[in-house]
Every structure is written in structure tokens, then in C-alpha cells.
């Protein structure tokens, strides 16, 4: 009975932490990562177009073009909003810093193209502004947002791809394999450690059935906590985010279950998902995208329309 309750509590809290909506000033990345249409101004065709071309570009040279539309900036200046978004999403390759963010704020009628450190050479601020005036502003002034965004996307895409055409067949495969592998590795790691420690605890309990020697159980628990902390640290270094907590929850759950296997797992609990838009992202689809860890120094240009 005691075991059952603990299990329930662990599961509940883990899921709660994982699914609770974050109270954050800027919007979160969707599972598509490259296109985040919170203001609902993009047609599905354009969204798919952007997604496919961005994935392709990322496979070619690691560069990432991300489009974000928001209903409102909520009082934040577009430069601050854009910088925060850029860095939180981690747009662009970590080494090359070749990311580009196209941010459109509907209510303020403002947009900004933010350029990562690595692209400042080919896209200086003056050029960005000029391209915006020629390829985006005409559409936006007549409220043709869908076409305007596609037009802008295309021109910046061609700038970037002409600059770095380092195409490597292997790169794409390696990147996807690396990404997926890492998660699998840590899922396995957590399951394994949970099982091992569950088994160890069972053995210790069995051995000490008659004499109440708690010291070895205590040592085992200490070791387990140390392992959990280690996993937590490594996972946060690898930027697992809230998945890390989920993994640890699974770890503890398995340990508890292996330790006392005749308890039934509680069934039929519902998960509360407070997110208004699309799935959680990393845990759901096998083909979810994320940022390469690139950063920006504040370069780019903004325009009002």
C-alpha cells in the first residue's frame, strides 16, 4: 500500500512538472522549430514550405532560418524579444553561429530580422534593412503577410545558401543519428540504473530480513541518490530540459517497481496539458527539430509596417 502511494505521487509530480505551462515572457518553440505561427497568419502551404526548406538548409551547412509570428510582444521591445527568442531557441550551429530569426509582431505591426554572429559578414544591418524594404515591406503594407513572409524567407535563404554551400551527404545523417541516439542512450541509462538499484535494494532487503541492519540499505540509498544527481547534472549539461525530470521520474519509478513488484501501477490518470498550441515537441514525434545552440549579438534590422 505504501509503495503504491509513493508511485502515484512520483508519477503525478513528474508529469505535473513536465506538462505545466511555463510562465515565460517569450513564446516557446513548437515541435517544428523552424516555423512558429502563433499569430496564425501563415497558410499551411507556406508553413510546410518554410519547414522543408529550413530542414534542408540545416542539413547542408548547419544554418537555421526560423520564422516566428506572435500576436503581441507584450510590452517587450522587438529587439529584446528577438534576442531572447534567438538565444533561447539556440538558432544556428553552435560553432558557426549561422542562425537567422524572422520575427513578426502583429499587434505592434513590427517585424525584425535578427542575424547570428556568424552571418553578420554577409548580412550586415544595412543590407538586411534594404532587403526588408524591397522584399517584405511592399507586401506587409497591404497586409499580405503570407506572401510577404515567404518572399522575405526566400531572399534570405538565397543569401545564406550562396555563402556556404558545404554540402555533405554524411552530415545530415550524422546529425539526426546523433540527436536521436542521445535521447535513446539516456532513456536506456535511466531504465538501467533504476533496475539495477531496484534489484540491489531487493537483495539487501532479503539478506537483512532477520537482522535489522539498515546501514547497507542506507549506503545503497546514498549511492542511488548520487547516481541520480549525476544523471541530472549530465542531462542538464546536454540541455535536456524538462525531459530530464521525466527521465529521472521513470528511473525512480522503475527502481520502486523492481523493488516491490507486487504493487500495481495506478492506471487511468490524466495528464494536464496546459499548452495552447501543438504537442510538447521533444518527447512526442521522432522527427522533432531543435536549435543548434547558436547565438546572436543583436545584429539585424527592424521595420514598422
Amino acid at each position: 500500500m505504501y509503495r503504491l502511494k509513493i508511485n502515484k505521487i512520483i508519477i503525478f509530480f513528474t508529469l505535473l512538472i513536465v506538462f505545466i505551462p511555463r510562465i515565460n515572457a517569450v513564446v516557446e518553440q513548437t515541435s517544428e522549430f523552424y516555423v512558429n505561427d502563433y499569430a496564425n497568419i501563415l497558410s499551411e502551404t507556406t508553413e510546410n514550405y518554410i519547414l522543408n526548406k529550413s530542414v534542408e538548409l540545416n542539413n547542408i551547412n548547419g544554418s537555421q532560418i526560423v520564422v516566428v509570428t506572435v500576436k503581441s510582444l507584450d510590452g517587450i521591445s522587438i529587439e529584446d524579444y528577438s534576442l531572447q527568442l534567438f538565444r533561447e531557441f539556440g538558432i544556428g550551429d553552435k560553432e558557426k553561429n549561422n542562425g537567422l530569426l524572422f520575427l513578426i509582431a502583429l499587434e505592434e505591426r513590427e517585424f525584425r530580422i535578427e542575424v547570428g554572429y556568424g552571418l553578420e559578414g554577409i548580412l550586415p544591418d544595412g543590407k538586411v534593412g534594404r532587403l526588408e524594404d524591397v522584399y517584405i515591406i511592399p507586401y506587409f503594407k497591404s497586409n499580405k503577410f503570407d506572401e510577404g513572409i515567404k518572399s522575405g524567407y526566400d531572399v534570405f535563404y538565397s543569401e545564406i545558401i550562396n555563402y556556404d554551400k558545404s554540402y555533405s551527404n554524411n552530415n545530415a545523417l550524422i546529425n539526426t543519428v546523433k540527436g536521436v541516439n542521445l535521447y535513446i542512450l539516456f532513456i536506456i541509462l535511466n531504465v538501467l540504473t533504476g533496475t539495477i538499484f531496484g534489484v540491489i535494494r531487493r537483495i539487501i532487503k532479503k539478506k537483512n530480513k532477520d537482522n535489522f541492519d539498515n546501514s547497507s540499505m542506507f549506503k545503497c540509498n546514498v549511492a542511488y541518490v548520487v547516481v541520480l544527481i549525476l544523471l541530472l547534472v549530465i542531462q542538464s549539461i546536454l540541455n535536456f530540459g524538462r525531459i530530464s525530470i521525466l527521465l529521472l521520474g521513470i528511473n525512480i519509478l522503475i527502481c520502486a517497481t523492481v523493488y516491490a513488484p507486487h504493487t500495481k501501477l495506478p492506471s487511468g490518470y490524466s495528464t494536464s496539458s496546459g499548452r495552447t498550441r501543438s504537442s510538447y515537441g521533444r518527447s512526442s514525434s521522432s522527427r522533432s527539430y531543435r536549435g543548434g545552440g547558436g547565438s546572436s549579438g543583436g545584429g539585424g534590422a527592424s521595420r514598422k509596417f
Partner: protein
Amino acid sequence: MKKKNIFIIIMVIGLLLIASLYVFKYNNLISLNENVESKLSDVGVQLERRADLIPNLVNTVKGYIEHEQTIIDSIANSRTKMINATTINEKNEANNELTAALNNLYVIIENYPDLKADDSFIQLQDELAGTENRIAVARRDYNDAVMDYNKTIKSFPTNIIANMLDFEEKDYFEVSGDKTEVPDVSFED
């Protein structure tokens, strides 16, 4: 084993642990310190970049606003001041003067629609706006670096080591209204 031996072994292990702690903490402090210095020089870089844009700006607007010589002069002067500045403190002061002069210019320009529509001017405005944003970002990054550093040297047990080796607290870039208070940086450029 004799109790005395066990005691000695524990002492030795204890000392080793403390020594390794010392090494790790020291290395951490060094890297945090370097990070602060690097972010500070980034601020300097952006300030210089801004100064570099000014001659172009002056040339572009000169033809249009011939009768506003005082404004042009004040801009050119603060730019010269910025170039001649050696420490980051001086650079920052000159930068503030430049900002004030530029603000005057932007007010005047409202009366010259031809200038506003000039392509080179538009490009320059974008460049200047970009640089100003970069300065703001560089300052923020510097402040973040200082915060990490200050937090570390103040927290236990690192503060003991920091104290021993004269790691001092660093100042932030503070912006109060229009005036920017400049940190008292104690290194020679």
C-alpha cells in the same frame, strides 16, 4: 589497523580533497574572470564600431543640411573624443555625448524629407541602429558575466579562496535614466 593510522589516512584524504577543491575553485574563478574581461572588450569593440560609422553619416547628411553646422560639429567632436579615449570609462562618456548629438540630429532630420528618403542615409540608420543594439546587448552580456563572477566569489566556500588571492568584486554597467554610470575598471588598456 591501529586507530592512529586510520586517523592519519583520513587526514591525508581530507587534505587531498581540500587541495583539489582549491584547484577547481581557483580554475573556475579564473575562467569567470576571463569571461568578464572578454565581455568588457566586446563592449569596447561595439563602441568603436559605432564611432567608425560616424564619418559616413556626416558625409551623407552634410549635403542636405548645410545650415546645421553646429549639430554636425558636435557629432564630429564627440566622435574624435571617442577615438582618442583610452580607457573604457572615457569611451563610454564620449559615447554618451555622441548619443546626445545624434538625438539632436534625428530631431532636425524630420524637417528634411529628402534626406530621410535617401538610400545611403537609410542604410546608415540601419547600421547605426544595429550598432546601438549591439552595444546594449554587449553591455547586458557583460553584466551577466559580472553577475556570475560576483556570485561565485561571494559564495561559500569559494569566497575564502577568492579572498586569499585578491579576487575583487566587479562593477556593473548601470544605466540610470540618460546618464550611464561607468564601472570603475582597474585595468590598463
